[in-house]
């Protein structure tokens, strides 16, 4: 037996195998196979329903609908893609990542997956992973949004030059993309290039972006440029939309102080400090949510703080996540109902109350709250019935009795000639 010859043959086979393996990997593992998957109408309908539920922050229901969609179409990448978005909203990042990777397995060319993964990593502070994912997305799909994601990740890493490069790329793709203008302006702000920052923000305004974020940014840049009188109108506009925003209140105070209006300045600065203290507590609670995403009470705590400062939209969102985590918690649901009322969504508010009462008809506070909303909705008789029902369970409830008495007086006043 010729051992050396056999060894040489084996070696050659191994090398050939290695080369073939490499060729296979290059052509298949990283290739862009399109999934030839066509969704049936019912599955499409389920996906649309899941998207609507996600937009309404009904996370549990959204996941349930997606399960149904998956049962019908197990190879549809859209299902894990949407599921990942739901899981992201409730900060189940690891599971979300797994779903995004499943989507990629089913459809390696699916647009948006790598981008969303990048966003998830950004939110977790894993910026370099985020950048890598955004770059993968760019290989498939060049968008201003993805370049912006890269820019934000670099900014968080303190690498300003790379951040600026990415934002410029975003604007090269879409010269009207205001979020990138704002981000770029913030980087320039940090480098004290206030004039350039102002130009960018004013450009964003010319494209119709005049919301409180832009108003605040312009106002604060003008303060830095010692243009205090020019700054104030912008800051007051921001304050109108964001009465809880301590940076705005603070900058108003500074602008007033430097314009010689010391007494007014002092009032705003004191208010700013009060808001700051609350915002600091909110920031702590946000951190707790990130550390304990599965704790419904931490979520609810954050929602409660946000409600206190008038950030109703965010409060509703966090309560809804809390409900997803603890679906049987009727107190959370009551809070959402109240918040909907505060947001002016009376019908939605009443709907929430009714759902709670279906589960617990003895919940007195809910009967009382619903009655209040019904009165404000011009439905006094239903309100009266709600309050009387409350009194069945709690006959001495002073608040309910007072409400009824007030309603009587109001109606007598209306009935009098």
């Amino acid at each position, binding site marked *: 037996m010729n051992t050396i010859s*056999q*060894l040489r043959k*084996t*070696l050659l*086979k*191994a*090398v050939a*195998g*290695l080369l073939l*393996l*490499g060729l296979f*990997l290059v052509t298949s*593992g*990283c290739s862009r196979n399109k999934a030839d998957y066509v969704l049936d109408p019912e599955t499409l309908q389920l996906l649309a329903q899941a998207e609507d539920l996600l937009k309404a922050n009904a996370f549990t229901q959204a996941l349930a609908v997606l399960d149904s969609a998956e049962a019908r179409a197990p190879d549809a990448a859209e299902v894990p893609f949407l599921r990942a978005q739901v899981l992201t909203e409730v900060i189940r990042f690891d599971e979300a990542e797994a779903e995004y990777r499943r989507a990629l397995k089913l459809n390696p060319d699916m647009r948006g997956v790598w981008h969303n993964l990048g966003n998830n990593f950004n939110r977790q*502070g*894993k*910026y*370099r*992973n*985020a*950048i*890598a*994912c955004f770059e*993968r997305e760019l290989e498939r799909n060049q968008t201003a949004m993805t370049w912006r994601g890269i820019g934000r990740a670099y900014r*968080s*890493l*303190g690498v*300003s030059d790379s951040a600026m490069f990415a934002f410029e790329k975003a604007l090269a793709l879409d010269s009207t993309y205001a979020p990138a203008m704002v981000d770029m302006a913030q980087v320039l*702000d*940090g*480098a*004290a290039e206030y004039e350039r920052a102002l130009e960018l923000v004013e450009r964003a305004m010319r494209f119709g972006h005049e919301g409180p974020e832009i108003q605040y940014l312009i106002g*604060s840049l003008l*303060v*830095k440029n010692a243009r205090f009188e020019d700054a104030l109108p912008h800051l007051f506009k921001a304050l109108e939309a964001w009465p809880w925003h*301590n*940076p705005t*209140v*603070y*900058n108003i*105070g*500074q602008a007033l*102080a*430097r314009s010689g209006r*010391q007494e007014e*300045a*002092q009032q705003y*600065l*004191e208010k*700013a*400090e009060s808001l*700051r203290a609350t915002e*600091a*507590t909110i920031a*702590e609670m946000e951190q707790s949510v990130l*550390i*304990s995403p599965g704790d419904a009470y931490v979520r609810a705590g954050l929602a409660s703080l946000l409600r206190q400062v008038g950030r109703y939209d965010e409060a509703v969102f966090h309560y809804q996540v809390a409900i997803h985590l603890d679906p049987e918690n009727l107190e959370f649901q009551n809070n959402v109902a109240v918040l909907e009322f505060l947001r002016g969504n009376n019908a939605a508010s009443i709907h929430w109350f009714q759902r709670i009462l279906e589960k617990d008809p003895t919940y007195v506070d809910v009967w009382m709250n619903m009655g209040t909303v019904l009165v404000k909705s011009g439905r006094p008789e239903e309100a009266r019935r709600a309050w009387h029902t409350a009194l069945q369970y709690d006959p001495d409830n002073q608040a309910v009795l007072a409400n009824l008495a007030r309603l009587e007086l109001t109606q007598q006043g209306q009935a009098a000639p």
Partner: protein
Amino acid sequence: MLFLSSQGIRLVAVIVATIVLLTACNGATSEPEQTEATPPASNQFGFSFVNVTEEAGLGGFKHIIGDYGDVLFPESMGSGCGFIDYNGDGWLDILLVGGGVFPRSPQKFEYALWLYRNNGDGTFTFVSPEAGLVGIDTYGLGVTVGDYDNDGDEDFYFTTLYENMLFRNDGGVFVEVGKEAGVAGPSEWSASGIFFDADRDGDLDLFHGNYVKWTIETDKYCSLNNREKGYCTPETYEGISGRFYVNNGDGTFTERTKEAGMIPSPGKNLGVAEFDYNRDGWPDLIVTNDTQPNLLWRNNGDGTFTEIGALSGIAYDEHGKTRAGMGVDTGVIDKSGEESIVIANFSREMIAVYRYLGNDLFQDISARSRVGRISLMTLTFGLFLIDIDLDGDLDMYAANGHVQPQVEETQEGVYYAEPPHLFLNDGNGMFEDHAPDIGGPLLVPVVARGACFGDYDRDGDIDILVAENDGPVHLLRNDLVNGNNFLKIKTRGKQVNRDGYGTRIVARVGDHVMERRVRGGSSYLAHSETAVIFGLGQAEKVDTLTLYWLNGHVDTFTNVQANQELLIIEGEEPIVMPRNGNNLAAN
């Protein structure tokens, strides 16, 4: 000889290919490069640093945090250091805070205070026992030096986690007199202290910051990663206001915190510095607070202070947010002639730089000064302004190091041990961090806390001392070779306090005007040399040297020769201090 079977060869090939595949598309994470300290080479800046800790005889020191696994909040805060001439021989001695232990800690704790006598030859000798600094049972934090009894030797105040201590210097031996002097205070977590003559009556009063209400029993559970306990941030604790003591002139003090208008205040103080920002002749205080608004106490000249931090613009960042507020210093950093304040902050917070505009208003120039962006990701504790290259303007040294050992797991771009920043001033208040260029020990990541400066080898340039948390001290000798000249001034008051604290000294060289202040405090938990050093560049004399003493007396001298140490006694001609000829500027 190892012989692979044919199957084995195929297996190896597959494994190699798999490894190649797995490493193909991952995002890269990078770690900070740990660069070994290389011997410093001459560079364009004309100076370099050498870590002479061992050769100076300081290698035996280690700060103890006294941990035993419970991750207690004070373990993260480190301690301070100080330069003090305890024996009055003209050579700067070194005073280090040893930290402490908690009752359950198995660690051996030898000395709360480590005093090293300067031998005058670049080395130090440990002298705590002979100086009376033994048997001190406490958990120490900071030191601040001042001749509070005006008897000609340097005393010091020692802040701790419990009652503070005042060490009176009796001819080179220290006696603890905190209680009898009335400055021990209750058992509370204190921070930086400062001697200053608040009422300009000729003796040194005392202020010290306090941090948070904390005991072992009330230590809270916090976690960065939801797996293991980490150090909490101060938001989770209630703050304690600082305390202000007026010197009675007889070796005792009376607390006047309330009468001075200094409470209520949010507490969580970490740094304090004294200056006269509005040039009214009365010493003011800047107090930095951790996650609370910084305080600017304007001295009203009548025993009271008015707090104007928020109105003046120094309490918060530009968006009205509080920051960590650790080390602090003040000085004139540009040609405006106005005071600026620099404040050390947390990671993802810039070092703050505020310049006085007039009318009790400051402008945030952190970004404009180019300090901000560079300092964004580092966490700074010790911080001070010094003319490191003797070119006539104030540069800035920032001693860095994080508080959370697990920070690298949870925050990309942020590290636990960090190298310092050395910002060189271009003369117009614009700074560049040249630590990476200067190299040597400035490249080495450490977990720095207290930092101070002084010309310990009396060669005319400024050396740096840095204390590490749970680690050694670092003595960085400045080896200046650019040929720049200096003038060192030590003051002695007669009507004013003997140290001359509060004296403003202005040196004019042609059109160039420089200003320094004789004072204690600044940085973090630390005390720097109180003699002031002017860098003169290539100038061989100071045209006019003016001393504005705290009592309003003004001394002016002309054509003061460079490269000498002068003792200036209030109202008298300068005295040239004898120096060792072998220790002149050129190394």
